[in-house]
């Protein structure tokens, strides 16, 4: 991973990285926002997953899916705050297996979302109240719940493994 090592070294020399370690409020503020973003993300995505799995079937999926931008907002908050942690102390992360597991789970969750829009969305968006989702939708929903739980699991494991 020579590219990641050199990128991390370069990043540590930037003003942004120095700011993260210089101001004592940056880290706690970012952590708080990271938890708020996480809740938005897993809550909004979670109810869509649950509906596809057969919970609250009277809800039409189209309008339920309209909430997804708020889940994306949660993800963007976490991307920014997560990058802030990484910039503040990059070598604490890139040598930590929990970090790479977390990134891997996020990447696979991204592929799962791609699968949702490629193979599932058109079939479920028109489903009205009370209609069952096809097997592919149930699979995507179950995989999504599992992966986001895994992301939270490895995120919280970060301080306990590695250094």
């Amino acid at each position: 991973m020579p590219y990641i090592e050199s990128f991390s070294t370069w990043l540590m020399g930037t003003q942004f990285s120095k700011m993260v370690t210089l101001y004592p409020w940056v880290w706690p503020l970012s952590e708080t926002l990271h938890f708020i973003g996480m809740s938005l993300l897993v809550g909004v995505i979670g109810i869509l997953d649950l509906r596809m799995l057969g919970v609250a079937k009277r809800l039409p999926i189209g309008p339920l899916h309209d909430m997804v931008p708020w889940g994306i907002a949660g993800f963007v908050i976490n991307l920014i705050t997560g990058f802030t942690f990484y910039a503040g102390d990059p070598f604490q992360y890139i040598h930590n297996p929990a970090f790479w597991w977390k990134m891997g789970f996020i990447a696979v969750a991204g592929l799962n979302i791609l699968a949702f829009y490629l193979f599932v969305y058109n079939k479920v968006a028109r489903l009205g109240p009370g209609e069952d989702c096809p097997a592919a939708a149930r699979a995507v929903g179950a995989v999504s719940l599992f992966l986001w739980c895994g992301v939270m699991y490895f995120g919280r494991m970060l301080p306990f493994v590695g250094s």
Partner: protein
Amino acid sequence: MEFLMWLESTDLSTWIRESSSLWAYPAILIAHTIGLGYLVGINAAVDMRLLGLSPGLPIEPLRHFFKYIWWGFWINAISGLLLVTRDPVNVFKNPAFPIKMLLIFIAVYILSRLGKAVASSSVESGPVPSNLKWMAALSAFCWLGAIVAGRLMAYVAPRPGLG
């Protein structure tokens, strides 16, 4: 105070505090994090619908999501009790702790009221009555505040190590 000191001297408290097992402190924190995600996340999604988002969603079927919100709550009540058990004297000295507890108390009270109001709602689309809107707004505010106070606990602790 005597009770807290006794609690701190129990085997359970010592084990959570000192064990290097990933099943001790880390597992409890992971449970507390995942519980938070679904407790606050799904509750927030319900709040957002009540506040006017995704007006195409009928209200009554949302009651099926409350089971999962309560699951999140009980996971966090139990894991939270264990986190207090780990370091009871310091937790009770922590100025952010009573604020967190007060906000959770209000949010959970609203959650139980909201559950009943949602289950008996006849709103199929569009805005909900303003009392429901106010409850949703207060619910979202209290959960946000509880997350802020909870994260702050790690930074205003009487002695470090309450991460």
